[in-house]
Each structure stands twice: as structure tokens, then as C-alpha cells.
């Protein structure tokens, strides 16, 4: 059942990803991205990582996809794809490098299968899931990255205000 679900979701993610890069229509590309990201969230569910799946759905499908839709709204000629394809060797290089990196990680990671079927829930105050507490980790081990992300958002907000301000 899980294997079947995996192949179904993986196929959906691949088709979505292909649509993103091949669709000439910007809105279709956005929809393809949506499908791909949602399918990845589904794969997280088959791996018993419910919270991660929901976070993926909330942030990527609900947030990033809506952001891209906003970008589409600002685009005047939506049906015409970008005419400059001169950067394709660089794109190919980046893609190949990413693929190599991912493949290396996949080959060298030691995959563990114990604990399958137990849902790990890094929830607020969930005493049953001893060990992993998202908030505790966020405010101790990963405090610096968390604060940096906050700073980045502040800079982005101020930048947006400066650009959008009425003169």
C-alpha cells in the first residue's frame, strides 16, 4: 500500500516538476509547481512525518504558490514564455551539480527502518513524544538561524515598504 502510494505520489511530483520547466504558460507552470509540492507533502505522510507534511503544505502550497500567483498577476504577457534562453548552460550546470549532490547524499546516508509506523510528533508540549520538541530545539540549538531568519524577514519587510511607499 505504502509502496503503491509512493509510486503514485512520486509520478505526480515528477509530472508537476516537468510541467514547471516545460510549460510555456506561466500560470500552468505555477500549477505544476503546486502539484509537485503537494505530492512531496504526500510522500512525507507515507514516511510518518505528519507535521513535516502539513508544514510543507502550509508553507509551500499555501504560501509560495500564492506568492507565485501574485507574480503571475503582475506579469503583463502571461502567455509568452521568457524569450532569453541564453543562460541555459549555467542552468544545466546548476541542475547537474544539485543532482550529483543529492545522489551523493542518498548513496552515503545510512537509511534506518526501525521505528516505522510510529508517528513522530514534534508538537507543542506533547509529552508522549519524548526527545523531539520543536520549540525547545528552535529556542536553544537553532536559536541563531532562527534569529537570522527573523532578521531576513525584517529586511524584506522594510525593503517592500521602501519600494511600495507613495512618494
Amino acid at each position, binding site marked *: 500500500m505504502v509502496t503503491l502510494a509512493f509510486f503514485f505520489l512520486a509520478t505526480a511530483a515528477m509530472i508537476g516538476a516537468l510541467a514547471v520547466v516545460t510549460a510555456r504558460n506561466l*500560470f*500552468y507552470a505555477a*500549477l505544476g509547481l*503546486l502539484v509537485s509540492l503537494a505530492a512531496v507533502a504526500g510522500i512525507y505522510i507515507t514516511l510518518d512525518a*505528519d*507535521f513535516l507534511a*502539513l*508544514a510543507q*503544505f*502550509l508553507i509551500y*502550497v*499555501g*504560501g509560495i*504558490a*500564492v506568492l507565485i*500567483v*501574485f507574480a*503571475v*498577476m503582475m506579469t503583463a504577457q502571461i502567455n509568452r514564455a521568457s524569450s532569453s534562453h541564453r543562460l541555459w548552460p549555467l542552468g544545466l550546470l546548476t541542475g547537474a551539480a544539485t543532482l550529483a549532490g543529492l545522489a551523493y547524499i542518498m548513496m552515503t546516508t545510512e537509511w534506518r527502518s526501525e521505528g516505522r509506523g510510529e*508517528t513522530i*510528533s514534534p*508538537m*507543542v*508540549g*506533547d*509529552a508522549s513524544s519524548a526527545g523531539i520538541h520543536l520549540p525547545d530545539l528552535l529556542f536553544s540549538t537553532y536559536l541563531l538561524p532562527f534569529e537570522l531568519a527573523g532578521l531576513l524577514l525584517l529586511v524584506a519587510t522594510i525593503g517592500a515598504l521602501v519600494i511600495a511607499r507613495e512618494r
Partner: protein
Amino acid sequence: MIADLTREFLENYLSTGIVDILMPLLGLFIVVNILLGSAVMLTYAERRIVARMQNRIGPNRVGPFGLLQGVADLMKLVLKEDLTPRAADRLVFLIAPILFFAPAIALFAVVPFFDGWTVADLDAGIVYVIAVTSISSLAAFAAGWASNNKYSLYGAVRGVAQLVSYEVPLILAVTSVILLSGSLNLQEIVEAQGIPFVLVQPLGFLIMLIAVTAELNRTPFDINEAESEIVAGFHTEYTGTKFALIYGAEYVAALGWSAVIVTLFFAGWKPDLGGIIWFGIKTSAIIFLFFWFRGTWPRVRIDQMLALAWKLLFPLATINILVTAGEVLAMQALFSLEPGEALPVAALAIIAAINIGLTVAVLALLARVPGLAKFDQQLAAPAGAKV
């Protein structure tokens, strides 16, 4: 129990493997059909209630008291010709109503109808609710964009701006409830409510109610389908079954969000009156509130609506979270609780007393703040006009 009987009955005829796959599908079939039936009845209820408020009679011809009006309307819509504008984007035009309907139905997967009666008892139930409903902005935009009609696109653009803005105070209001209950599981949030959170968190409830009204595109926030300005907004070009799907999805979503509000603020199925009855009564009361809004308030303008979300609800909700967090920390020290442990009734009562006082003070102050009087004038005049 009924599920077990059905399973036994089916296993007489089919192999166990097929029954395993069939049972969830059967459950889905039943739930979806109950929801669709409710949506049909809700259209009738809304028309009758709003008619009463406007001193009219409303539909009363089809069936006893006009009860079958919704069924007749649905039949009419399904039998109508299914038109797709020639300039429309056919694929997206077809997908959009489905994208609109799916999250409305999916919302019910985590709603705790009764002790243990949840389709999927997720640990992060409330995150699921917010995640799933965040698609609706995309669906509304897809519908408007695919129609290739200027009114549809205006409605869609307004809809996206509205949904994105009101999601912020909505999530912040929900966060204050999570702080109090110490859990993201809806069943546990219900159990944590020794006192209904509407008393402990009155400001949070008001913010949530306003944000949900906007999230549902209901009056006074239905500017993305304002018929006096942009025909019917994002669903101008939709006819027949597709229109029925969009129209029905709005009622199913209203039902779902009412159930979520009851779960978060009105102690869900507690106190136990047996089964789903108490939960149903509370949910109906919240839906009635939405109908009441429609019967009494005129539609706001787009700039007024965005100003309300960002200049009033967002700061209020943020302050509400800070106050609540402080209170929870104080109560944990006072009653010597572990972090994340549910607050006892006494602690909730103290917080309720403080918060009700604060909410009354805030509401009284808001009317008198000099800056807000100016804000009121700005609301009364168009955004660009000199006041």
C-alpha cells in the same frame, strides 16, 4: 458499530482485501453526501432567515414550508447547459471549481464531532485546517483568471488580496488558543477547555470570527463577488454544475469553519449531551451568526477591508498573543505546572477575568482613540482622496 456491521455484510460477498479498500471509500461517500445535503439545506435556511430579517417571506412553495427549494435549485443547476467561454482556459476553468470544493470537504477530516469521533485524529489538527484552507485563495484566483473576463479577474485579484490578508489575524487568533491548550490536536483542545475559550479568549474569538467571515467571502466581506460592482466576481462565467460546485463549496466551507470555531472557542462537544447533538446545536448557532451578518451589514469596500485587516486586527491579534503568553507563563508559575501541561479550571478562570476586562477596555478605548477617529474618516473616504 455501523462500520463493523457493514464490513461483516460486505465480507460475505467480497474478499477481505477488496473490503479493506472499499470501507474508507464508503465512509467518504457517506460523509461527502451528508455534507452536500447540508449545503443544499443551508441555502434554503439562509434564504428564509435573511428574508425574515428583511421583512419578506422567502421561498415557501416547493415542499412543506418550501423545504425542498434547495433541491429544486440544485436540479435546475445540474440540468442547465454547461458553458465554457471560447476565450477561457479550458483546463484551469474545469479544475478551479474542484480546487474550490476539495479543501471545504477536507476540512471535516479533523473536526472532532464527539469524544473519539474524528475521521483523522491528527496530532497537528489545527495546522491541517489552516494548511488545507490556504488552497482556496489559489482556487478563487484560478477560476477568475481562467474565465478570461475582466470582472472575473477583478474578483480574483480582490479575493487573493483578501484571503492572504485575513489569514494573518486568523492564524494569530488560533495561536492564542494553542497557547492556552498546549496542543495542536483538536480533540485535546476540546478537552483542555474547562471553561469555554470564548470566555478566556474573548478578543481572540472576535478576531477569529471577523477573519473567518472574510475567509468565507461572506457579507460584509464578499467584495470579490460584489454583484453591484463586478457582476459576480470570480465566478461570473460559471454556469450549471460548475457553478453549483462553487456555490455549494461556500456553504460546506461555512459549515466547516463554524465547526472549527465551535471546537476552538465553545468547548466542542462538551458538555456531553449524548452524541453529536450538542456540537450540532453550537455549529448551527455560529452559522446563524453568519446569516445574521448578511442580513444586517452592508458590504465594505476593498480598501476598507484591507485596512481593517492590517491596521486593526493584525496589531490587536499580536498584542493578544503577547498578553496570553504572559498569562500562561504566570499561571504555570502560580500553579507550578510543567510547560505544555493543560491549565486547570481555576487558572483559566483567572485568565478569563483578566481578558474579559481587557477586551471590554480595548473595545471601549478603540472608539475614543484620536488616531482611530482619523482612521474612521479614512475608511469613509476613498484611499487616494485627501481627507
